[in-house]
């Protein structure tokens, strides 16, 4: 592999950083959910990169990252489904999706 390992690792870190910043500063709940997906994607990229550069010795160890990434994506899909359902039902009762307006639990 001629590509230096820092390139894909840096891309993964950049995606994670941008996603983290977006998730922390935006107030639209749907948009926050989208940035969490971007962060998970950056983590997957890191995982696959390290597996490809250092761990692809046997067919089984070479496919470990693919299997783990499959589980990460499964959890991401489940999280997006339940998160969107919660956002829809909360927007139906409260009439808004801005997270700083959800102050029902405030004492």
């Amino acid at each position, binding site marked *: *592999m*001629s*590509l230096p*390992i*820092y390139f*894909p*690792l*840096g*891309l993964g*870190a*950049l*995606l994670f*950083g*941008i996603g*983290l*910043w977006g998730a922390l*500063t935006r*107030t*639209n709940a*749907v*948009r926050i959910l*989208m*940035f969490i*997906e*971007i962060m998970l*994607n950056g983590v*997957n990229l890191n995982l*696959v990169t390290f*597996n*490809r*550069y*250092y761990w*692809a*010795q*046997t067919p*089984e160890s*070479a*496919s470990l990252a*693919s*299997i783990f*990434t*499959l*589980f990460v*994506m499964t*959890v*991401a*899909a*489940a*999280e997006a*489904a*339940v998160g*969107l*359902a919660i*956002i*829809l*039902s909360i*927007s*139906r009762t409260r009439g808004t*999706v*801005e997270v700083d307006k959800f102050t029902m639990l405030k004492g």
Partner: protein
Amino acid sequence: MSALTLLTRGESIAFLILALVALGSTYKMVTSRLITHAALFMALSFTAVAGVFLLLEAEFVAAIQILIYTGAITTMILFAIMLSGLAEIRKDRETRGPLWMKSDPLVLVVGGIFAAFMCYIYAAANLPEAITPESLPTVKAIGSALFTKYVIPFEVASILLLIAMVGAIILTAKEAE
């Protein structure tokens, strides 16, 4: 120029193009005013990262990235935005909040600082030379490992998906009067 150098250069150029597309679309995701545009830029970012997965010779991951992220999750988010009938969900670009929260270039600055910090840690870790892989992940090896050694996590993941589906239906279904 030998074929190997050409290949090397092509690999780097392809990676740089894909990385630029991914970063640009993620940046537009943060800055675009309409949330539907943000969702479409998210699909573009996922597709570019799928291309990077192809460069890293992980074809299976690239395929499920396209299927799950670009196909399923983007479609689900777009459907939730468009079918909800709530104008509030589409409105975005909050007007409140301090100025630094809304600043667009600051997104790249913060992301760049984070990436530089991570690259500094990687450089300090003295990563060894990349090995020449003796074998690449084949779909056959992935499938046989998934159904023998990792069959219990696989089944747990399917149960998780089933529970998520039932939970989403219960949460969004209108209550019967």
